Structures are given as structure tokens and as C-alpha cells.
């Protein structure tokens, strides 16, 4: 990516419930060349520290974005997460085996119960009907930095159910 490429970012801020706070948080974005796309102000929903979470979508170049995050922090605005796709990391896996006979919905529930993982969408292909072997593609969403744990969970669940798990090869690896 070149330095002048504009991309979209999501910033999650924590604001104190006082008048003018939101404006104070948005100024560093506009002042540093960021283009505001949307603001989601979750009034009534408090963070564990008793602050109001605000989600801001904006467009900027990578350099501008770094300046914006710096300026927000300098202005005393608490930036919880900043970046593109930092909310969650996605990984796609394919499960193969007697998915229906081994209760696919239970399999999916086990994935999510282990924590840190949610199942995005599921595509099932069962060309031999529900009796034969089938395949399912699962999009898993994991908290940033926890894709390793998510995969470990998927491996354990697949192993217990006698299913084959086809893992993604991470681009960053080996």
C-alpha cells in the first residue's frame, strides 16, 4: 500500500459523560485530514469504567490516521482500539465429515462456548444428503491476537467429534 492510499478505519473511544466531550473527540479527526464517515454514540451503554463508548468510522491515509490517534490521545481522549479490522480477526476453516450426524449446531455452539470466538457465516455442502459425509465452511471471528486460541478450540472440537478440520494457512506465518 502506498502512503497516499486512503482507507477506512474504525476507532473506538471512551468518553466521559459531559457536555462538549463528543465535539472535543471529533476535532482532532477533522483537523488532521480525516474524513468522518459515521459516529455511533452508545448513550446508555457504559464501559466497565463508567464511560460512554463511541465508535467512529473515518477515512484517512495511514500517516494521517497515525497522527489522528496521536492527537486524540494528546487531547486526553481515551482510545480503546484503533485501526482497520482490529475489532476482530477472521479466519475461515472447512470442516469435513459426518457433520449432520454429529449435530452441526452443537459443534458450532461448542466453538463459541470456548470463548473469544464467534461463528460468522456457515455454508454447508451435503451432496450425499444428511447421511453421508459433508463439508462446511465456517467464518470464525476471534478477538485480535486470539486466532491461535480460536484454532486450538476448533481443533479440539473437531477431534472430539471425529471431524476433519482444514485450517487456513496464515499469511504472516510460518
Amino acid at each position, binding site marked *: 500500500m502506498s502512503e497516499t492510499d486512503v482507507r477506512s478505519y474504525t476507532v473506538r473511544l471512551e468518553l466521559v459523560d459531559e457536555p462538549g466531550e463528543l465535539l472535543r473527540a471529533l476535532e482532532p479527526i477533522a483537523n488532521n485530514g480525516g474524513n468522518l464517515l459515521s459516529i455511533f454514540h452508545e448513550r446508555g451503554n457504559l464501559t466497565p469504567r463508567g464511560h460512554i463508548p463511541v465508535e467512529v468510522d473515518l477515512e484517512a491515509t495511514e500517516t494521517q490516521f497515525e497522527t489522528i490517534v496521536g492527537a486524540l490521545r494528546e487531547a486526553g481522549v481515551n482510545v480503546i482500539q484503533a485501526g482497520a479490522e482490529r475489532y476482530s480477526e477472521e479466519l475461515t476453516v472447512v470442516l*469435513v465429515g459426518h457433520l449432520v450426524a454429529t449435530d452441526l449446531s452443537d459443534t458450532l455452539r461448542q466453538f463459541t462456548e470456548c470463548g473469544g470466538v464467534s461463528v460468522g457465516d456457515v455454508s454447508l*455442502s451435503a*451432496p450425499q444428503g444428511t447421511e453421508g459425509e459433508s*463439508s462446511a*465452511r465456517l467464518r470464525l471471528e476471534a478477538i485480535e491476537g486470539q486466532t491461535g486460541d480460536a484454532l486450538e478450540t476448533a481443533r479440539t472440537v473437531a477431534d472430539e467429534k471425529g471431524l476433519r478440520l*482444514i*485450517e487456513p*494457512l496464515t499469511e504472516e*506465518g*510460518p
Partner: protein
Amino acid sequence: MRLAVMGAGAVGTAVLELAGEYGHDVVGVADSSSGVVEDGGVDPDGVVSRKRKRGIVGDGTPEAVLGADYDVLVEATPTTLGDAEPGFSHVERALGRDRHAVLANKGPVAERYDEVRALEADSGGTVLFEAAVGGAIPILSTIDDLNGQVAAARGVLNGTANFILSRMAAEGIDYEHVLAEAQDLGVAEADPAFDVEGTDAALKCVILANVLYEGTYTLADAEVEGIADLPGSALELAAEDGRTIRLVGEVSDGNVRVGPRLVPENGTLAVSGTLNIVQLETNHAGRLNISGRGAGGPETASAVLADIGRLPELS
């Protein structure tokens, strides 16, 4: 150099036929039951024709070839697991006589690496085995050139499995049908287990781990899953998402894993047909990709002969 070639399969006979082009003389050739020794150099055509017509390479014994006056023993007998015999003993004999050993056979360096290295340490000879990993692709010599700066490696190291997966994805044909097609084409063996169960790829990864981590890995240390009986639906679902499935071997953080993995459909690792590819992760220079033919007689023989060119003069 004067070569003794143990093994008269596709690789052994290709070494015999190509050695002259590289300036070497083959003074002995053996298969599992027969041998021929000619101090002035054996006649490649005679050996090949005897092997084809009578199933022997000559009227001598393999033992006579092991005792011949050679500089380099080329170990090209079939890969065996566990004790890696008879390949291991052949290498042991050569090193015991202070001669070099060049292997195309994976067994000794995958299953008894530390023993091979110990024998080499006590010998005037050197052991090289480029041909054992990735056929014609210069993987081990590249790692050697990089002076310990390769942190990890991964890749597609079995052409048979890759052929099956790429055909299944391209044509939407079942595993059984593609396997039968591969067997007709000579891409898969009559007993394809070694390739489709991931054993062959795992042995190559074990050798890579031994080289990268100066370890004593064996097949038992590898986590191995094959591609046998993979349903076409798995490849279809992957394709809908812009991905495909490849049998990928990974050597990183001291671990060896081989299994089917989802990779981007047009990504670097998604080589098609019988091609192999290896990616080396270097400490200071990012990733290196090297791809090429991972099997075949002349291809593998070219790696054997390249190794012979790297050997030091025997004192």
C-alpha cells in the same frame, strides 16, 4: 569424481545417464539383488537394457559395488522408514571408508539424522542430500547459503497430492476418480498411501527441521494428516470463498506439521499439477519462494549431481 550408484530406479538410472555430462564417471551400479563394477566406467545403455530385459543391472553383487573404488556413493534406493535400511548401511559403509555420500533417499536423514551426522564427523567424507527434499529445487543449498538465517520453512512438497487437489478443484471430480487418473498417468503409485497420507511430505519436512534446528527429528515428531478421501465439496466451499486446499508442510518454532490447509486460490502456495514450492522465512530478508519440479528421474538426478559438484576434494 568416481561414483557408485546404489539403486537403479528412476533416479539411479538418471544419475547414471547424466553423470558423464557433469564430468563424472560411474564405476559401479547396484539394485537390490545385482551389481556391476567397471573401473573404466560402466556403460549406461548396457545397464538400462539389462535392467529392463532381465531385471538385473549386471552379473555382480551389490556388495561388490559397495567395495568398489569410488569417491562418492550415491544412495538412491527406495525410502524406508524406521531403521532406514538398506540406505543407512550404504551411507555408513561409504563414510567408514572416508568417501562421500550423496542421498536421494529420505530415510537415513529423516529417521536417523543424528547417527548420519555422527558418522560424518568421524569420516573424511561429506554427506549431502539436496535431492531428498523437493527434487530439483535447490532448497537445502539455499538454506546453507543463507548461513543460519532461515527461521522457518513451509511449502507444497508432494507432487502427487498436489496433482490430485488441483485436479479436484479445477474439474470438480471426486477424489477416487482423480486418483485413478493420476495412477494412469504414472503420477501416483499403485499404492498411493505414502503420498496421499502425507508421509512423503512429512519426511521432507522432518529433514528440513533437522537442517534448520540441527535437531534429531524423526517422522514420529511430525503431526501428519493426509488428503485421502477428501470430498469434492470441501474444495467447492473453499473455491466459493476464493480459496483452495493444498497439502502444506510447515516447519516453524521447532514443530513439524503436514496437513491440508486453506490457501488463497491465486496465492503463491497454490501451485498446480505436480509442481512443488517452498517458502523460506529469513531473519533479515523476508520470505523467499522457490518452486519447481519436486520429483522425476532426471530432475532429482540433477540435484544429486549438483550436490556432487559441491563436495570437497577427498584428501
